[in-house]
């Protein structure tokens, strides 16, 4: 396999120009898919025979929950890359993506809580999924907190990399322990997505909105990373040229 693209991604200059090209593309495609998926799910998918129309919350709940987990996976991998290969872009990625992951976790939490009211009759239930998203949110807040409180940039980069890697290794353990704890304590309730197989008309819009959310968040992440590159590389000539030639 050809790894040149991977090495190129490590170069801020190459990344900046690559993101210039692809971020708008990802944004447009992602936004269209997200809007189509959600509109389809809200207006055209059949109502759930058990939960009625409240299940339509799934079209924002599941994409954001998946994104929250994917972003953390990304943080962990970037942390590993940053510690092992000291690639310049890895800490930039962590800094740019951590707040987005936190926002995704917040959306998943709020939508889960509001969904819980008509489904379980309570705003919050200590369900395994909700609890692990809550913990995920706390992990994100830890990464953001340490990023913001260390003034020395190199130390901050190292610190968030360490915490992300530790988090990546611990995430499966936390998830497993929460699930185990949940089966121990949970009184008999049916879970949000208990049905074995979703019919195609429900599942397709979910897939669309999830993919759309990926594109949307990827585009925003690229812009945030570009901003961070501009902050860090402001002394280099290519940034100067880029800004004076193609700036606003």
């Amino acid at each position, binding site marked *: 396999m050809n790894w040149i693209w991977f090495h190129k991604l490590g170069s801020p200059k190459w990344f900046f120009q690559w993101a210039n090209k692809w971020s708008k593309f990802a944004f447009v495609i992602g936004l269209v898919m997200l809007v189509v998926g959600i509109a389809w799910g809200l207006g055209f998918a059949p109502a759930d025979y058990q939960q009625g129309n409240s299940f339509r919350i799934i079209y924002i709940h599941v994409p954001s929950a998946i994104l929250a987990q994917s972003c953390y996976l990304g943080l962990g991998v970037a942390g590993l890359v940053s510690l092992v290969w000291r690639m310049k872009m890895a800490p930039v990625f962590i800094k740019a993506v951590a707040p987005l992951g936190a926002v995704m976790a917040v959306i998943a939490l709020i939508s889960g809580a509001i969904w819980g009211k008509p489904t379980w009759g309570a705003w919050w239930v200590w369900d395994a999924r909700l609890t692990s998203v809550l913990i995920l949110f*706390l992990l994100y807040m830890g*990464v953001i907190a*340490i990023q913001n409180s260390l003034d020395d940039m190199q130390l901050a980069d190292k610190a968030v990399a*360490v*915490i992300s890697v530790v988090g990546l290794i611990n995430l499966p353990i936390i998830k497993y*322990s929460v699930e185990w704890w949940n089966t121990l304590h949970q009184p008999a309730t049916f879970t949000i997505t208990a049905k074995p197989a979703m019919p195609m008309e429900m599942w397709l819009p979910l897939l669309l909105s999830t993919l759309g959310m990926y594109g949307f968040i990827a585009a925003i992440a690229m812009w945030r990373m570009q901003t961070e590159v501009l902050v860090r590389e402001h002394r280099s000539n290519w940034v100067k040229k880029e800004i004076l030639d193609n700036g606003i």
Partner: protein
Amino acid sequence: MTYSSFFYSEILAIFRRKQDAVNALVFFLLVITLFPLGVSPSKEFLQPAAGGIIWCAVALAVLMSVEGMFKEDYNDGSLEQLVVSGLYLPVLVLLKLAVHWFAIMLPLLVLTPILSQMLFINWEILWVLILTLILGSPALFLIGTIGAALTVSLRRGAVLMLLIILPFYLPVIIFSTGAIAAAQVGQPYNGQLAILGAISLMTLTLSPIMAAVSIKASVN
């Protein structure tokens, strides 16, 4: 400096600063006292909740004591000496941790039977509680070290460290209180103990290296 001279100096340092260990113990006692006062002193509440109360208190006390572990060394420059000493830093971290573990956990384990009476824990359950403490607390210390090493250069690192480390304590707390709860209803609890041991072993391999990376970053 050799590994053994470092080890002896650490033991000496712990004895010179007895107050740190005493503080952790008093903190542990205080947190436990909060529950009967804050929720209910009745046996019906305390007996099933005792395992959770003790474990939460232990987790917080361990975090409090681990937080200051590198502070003194950082301030007087000896942490830098350790980094440039040519010795393998993760091993030094591990030695330091072992000394701390004994200094905090031994008095705590001695105190536990007394406390368990105050929280209405039966003698059979006490045995399980002590087993979970022995198997699970190394993980608390090991994970906490990473946070202590990361925040050592900060003047007010304690809250930050609590924030980033406490989520990682959840599996340990879940499985140890799970073992105690299982023992209380007469179910087998070996599985939970095995998982606790596994978590401690896993953090034993990972966290000294991570702590060493963080120390190097903090010192420079």
